[in-house]
């Protein structure tokens, strides 16, 4: 029996339920000092130097305070590598480099003290004054005013721009068109405007760093999901060789796209440790997490579909306006899915990014897909309503057999099965077409659905195998256990590839001394690191077979290791690398279908999601227990986005003036999660595509469509709150 495919418990499960699992903030060291950040309270302006000097003097005199580091005394940090800042969201400007303020929450000082209480109190004494400047807080502000010139050697940029492609992915075009120039004048047209707010990743683990110097060598324990990128960024900031930096990421308490790129506070913690000549711990506060670890930026999307009476789409346009900071580059790529998801002879997609005086955004679970499929999949529902065609039938009618962008086939696409199985499991056949048809007691009932899609991605990675005389074979890679179960599923892959029992393999992650792995993001880790582990395991089996031909059976193999010579163990200790995805002639993409039921109590504006069916086509499922958990988590992430999540910035002061609501136990529907479970060997030799994000994609649309079915209200602005449901509904107002 293979290890892959079994519903195994997580390898670190016991540590997690007994409190023995170690996360960054749990790391203790002798003489550990504590740091607290001081951050700007205005969105644009200049710190008054005299006030900073005075505040520094007062805070420095407080009990236990060891050092106050500000732009006036911070050893200058070098700019970060351009390859991380030009098309990735690493800020171009090093932290504490000058007295200009570009957004609320910009780091202005670090207070280091003997205890956390002393550091926190010291930071509270930092009364800083500003010469304020007018701030541009929204895309509208930026687009309606002439752009200021770049500043600080291009570190500060203003105005708006239209990026060609998403991050470093040349073929994921953010400005794209195909087919005739003009929109067809005949047919049924749906034209709508959608908006999505600022969302926060909100991992329950706060970002934490423990930095310690040993001579010229820096060891950083950090809550990061990109060890090798962080090492590269720190080496640049601190102007030191990468090999003198070791990054350790113990278990990471959730990331969802954060805990990467925004490493300014990590660099400051390292500086603080060097200045006070002691190890320093810095843990961001929950409020600092909103401004200092990234967020999903706002989008405004205009979407137009034109179709024939038979529902065949003739034209799709999706135009997105989104926001980044003045100090970093990021574009929420909302329009990417529209390029291929439904057959559409004519297509126009555009993205405009406005640089605002707000903190730097970054990737968040389903970057692009989460807000983009909200607009596209609601628009498809509007088209279904306009044509009188069932929403599932309309999607099947427009299903694309090949990737329209490249003309190439899919490496494995089973979307029709997702629709069919999902509809059957949900009981979609019984759905009355007209809105407001279903009622249960005092509440309206609505059924909605949406398509999910997310790319199958893979990058190069390496894996080290170490064989020891205790019969244990350890696989190690500089990847991260952020809660996805990578240690568990990699152990399963390693066991099958080597032929060893699960008890005799381990998978270790979270240390820059391990061979290279990319960031844990973009749903790529299982395909990426799994390919390296698989190759390493096969190599291990081959090497063992050459030394012990004919020795078969797990018990015999383990016995041979226990009695093996050092020479054998050496032979079975090595490192292998695997490539990124080659050009196989096919395109890898995951798909899925979401179906849900909502109850809407119109008297009090309350929406309850009661039932959820998701069927996902994500290649081979390595561990059904963990995969089901991941998809349920993805759905809840989308449920929060649909109904409650928005960072409550005050539009005038740019301050966060409320709390960020996320789903609780009381908001969870009954789940029925299914997988097509068809291996996709076009992407990698283990047949997987990632599942970290597909669960979220399409969820807000399925809920909004269900709310329409329940109430007849087409609500196109997220989140759909009580206020939105209680406001007298004017269908004209939300149309484009």
């Amino acid at each position, binding site marked *: 029996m293979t290890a892959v495919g079994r519903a195994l418990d*997580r390898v670190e499960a016991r540590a997690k339920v007994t409190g023995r699992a*170690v996360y960054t903030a749990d790391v203790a060291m002798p003489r550990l000092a504590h740091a607290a950040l001081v951050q700007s309270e205005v969105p644009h302006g200049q710190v008054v130097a005299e006030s900073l000097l005075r505040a520094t003097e007062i805070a420095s005199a407080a009990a236990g305070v060891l050092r106050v580091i500000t732009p006036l005394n911070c050893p200058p940090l070098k700019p970060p590598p351009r390859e991380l800042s030009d098309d990735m969201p690493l800020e171009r400007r090093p932290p504490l480099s000058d007295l200009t303020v570009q957004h609320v929450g910009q780091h202005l000082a670090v207070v280091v003290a003997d205890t956390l209480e002393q550091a926190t*109190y010291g930071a509270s004494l930092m009364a800083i004054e500003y010469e304020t400047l007018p701030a541009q807080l929204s895309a509208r502000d930026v687009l309606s005013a002439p752009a200021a010139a770049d500043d600080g050697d291009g570190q500060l940029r203003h105005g708006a721009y239209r990026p060609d492609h998403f991050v470093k992915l040349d073929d994921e075009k953010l400005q794209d068109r195909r087919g005739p120039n003009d929109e067809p004048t005949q047919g049924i047209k749906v034209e709508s405007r959608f908006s999505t707010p600022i969302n926060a990743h909100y991992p329950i683990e706060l970002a934490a760093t423990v930095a310690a110097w040993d001579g010229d060598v820096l060891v950083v324990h950090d809550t990061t999901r990109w060890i090798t990128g962080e090492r590269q960024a720190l080496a640049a900031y601190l102007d030191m060789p990468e090999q003198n930096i070791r990054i350790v990421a113990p278990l990471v308490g959730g990331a969802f796209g954060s805990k990467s790129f925004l490493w300014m506070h990590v660099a400051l913690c390292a500086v603080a440790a060097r200045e006070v000549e002691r190890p320093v711990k810095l843990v961001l506060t929950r409020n600092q997490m909103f401004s200092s670890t990234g967020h999903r930026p706002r989008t405004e999307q205009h979407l137009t579909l034109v179709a024939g009476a038979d529902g065949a789409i003739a034209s799709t346009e999706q135009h997105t306006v989104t926001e980044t900071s003045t100090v970093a580059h990021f574009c929420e790529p909302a329009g990417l899915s529209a390029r291929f998801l439904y057959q559409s002879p004519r297509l126009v997609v555009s993205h405009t990014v406005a640089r605002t005086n707000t903190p730097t955004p970054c990737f968040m679970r389903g970057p692009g897909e989460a807000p983009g499929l909200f607009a596209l999949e609601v628009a498809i529902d509007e088209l279904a309503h306009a044509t009188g065609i069932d929403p599932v039938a309309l999607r099947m009618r427009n299903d694309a057999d090949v990737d329209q962008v490249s003309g190439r086939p899919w490496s494995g696409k089973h979307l029709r099965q997702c629709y069919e199985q999902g509809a059957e499991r949900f009981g979609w056949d019984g759905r009355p077409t007209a809105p407001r048809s279903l009622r249960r007691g005092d509440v309206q009932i609505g059924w909605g659905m949406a398509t999910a899609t997310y790319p199958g991605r893979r990058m190069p990675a390496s894996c080290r195998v170490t064989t020891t005389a205790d019969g244990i074979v350890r696989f190690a890679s500089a990847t991260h256990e952020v809660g996805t*179960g990578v240690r568990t599923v990699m152990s399963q892959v390693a066991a099958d590839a080597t032929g060893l029992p699960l008890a005799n393999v381990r998978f270790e992650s979270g240390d820059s001394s391990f061979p290279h792995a990319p960031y844990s993001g973009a749903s790529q880790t299982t395909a990426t690191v799994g390919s390296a582990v698989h190759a390493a395991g096969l190599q291990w089996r081959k090497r063992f077979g050459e030394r012990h031909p004919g020795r078969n059976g797990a018990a015999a193999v383990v016995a041979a290791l226990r009695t093996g010579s050092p020479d054998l163990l050496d032979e079975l200790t090595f490192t292998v690398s695997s490539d990124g995805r080659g050009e196989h002639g096919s395109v890898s993409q995951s798909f899925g279908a979401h179906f849900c039921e909502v109850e809407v109590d119109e008297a009090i504006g309350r929406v309850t999601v009661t039932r959820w069916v998701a069927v996902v086509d994500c290649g081979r499922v390595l561990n059904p227990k963990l995969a089901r958990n991941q998809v349920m988590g993805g759905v809840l992430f989308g449920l929060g986005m649909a109904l409650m999540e928005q960072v409550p910035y005050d539009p005038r002061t740019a301050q966060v003036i409320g709390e960020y609501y996320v789903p609780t136990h009381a908001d969870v529907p009954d789940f029925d999660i299914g997988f097509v479970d068809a291996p996709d060997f076009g992407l990698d030799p283990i047949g997987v595509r990632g599942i970290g994000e597909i669960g979220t994609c399409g969820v807000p649309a399925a809920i909004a469509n269900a709310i329409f079915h329940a109430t007849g209200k087409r609500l196109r602005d997220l989140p759909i709150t009580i206020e939105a449901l209680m406001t007298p509904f004017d269908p004209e107002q939300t149309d484009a």
Partner: protein
Amino acid sequence: MPEAETSCRIVELTVNGGARRATVDVRSTLLDLLRDRIGLTGTKKGCDHGLCGACTVTVDGERVLGCLTLAASIDGSDVVTVEGLADGDELSALQQAFVEHDGFQCGFCTSGQLSSAHALLREHTRGDLSAASFEADRGAASCGRVCLTNDEIRERMAGNICRCGAQANIVTAIAEVGRGRA
């Protein structure tokens, strides 16, 4: 506030059955005392202002938020943390059910979820009601004998946030243990 900077108290606690004595800054929370001074880092800081439930521990038999409890305010109390839930190597029934039903992903909220889950079972056994009790069967609620339905569990666990989204598995784990007791 110069006094505040230097003011300390001696606190004596029983933690997971063992006597502890510590000099604490009056500004220290129970959470920071447990983690930074006593070295019991199983209890987690997720927000430090009573929103997320990750720091839930038991003080004198009741669940409290460690981040909203000043250490100096509970002198003489009996504290149980996640490290005190197992009997040596033998996991509690709830810990075992969390493992089997995969009641977590990243694991950061898990200590708080488990502390709350243990408290939930004690509270239900002694007849405590929840908001959900009155939405279901008011008759049963009025005599204080409500069934531990999934809705009851969801309501009673609503103060413990899991951002990974393992809630459905957590509820399954608690329901299995809770119904086994009934």
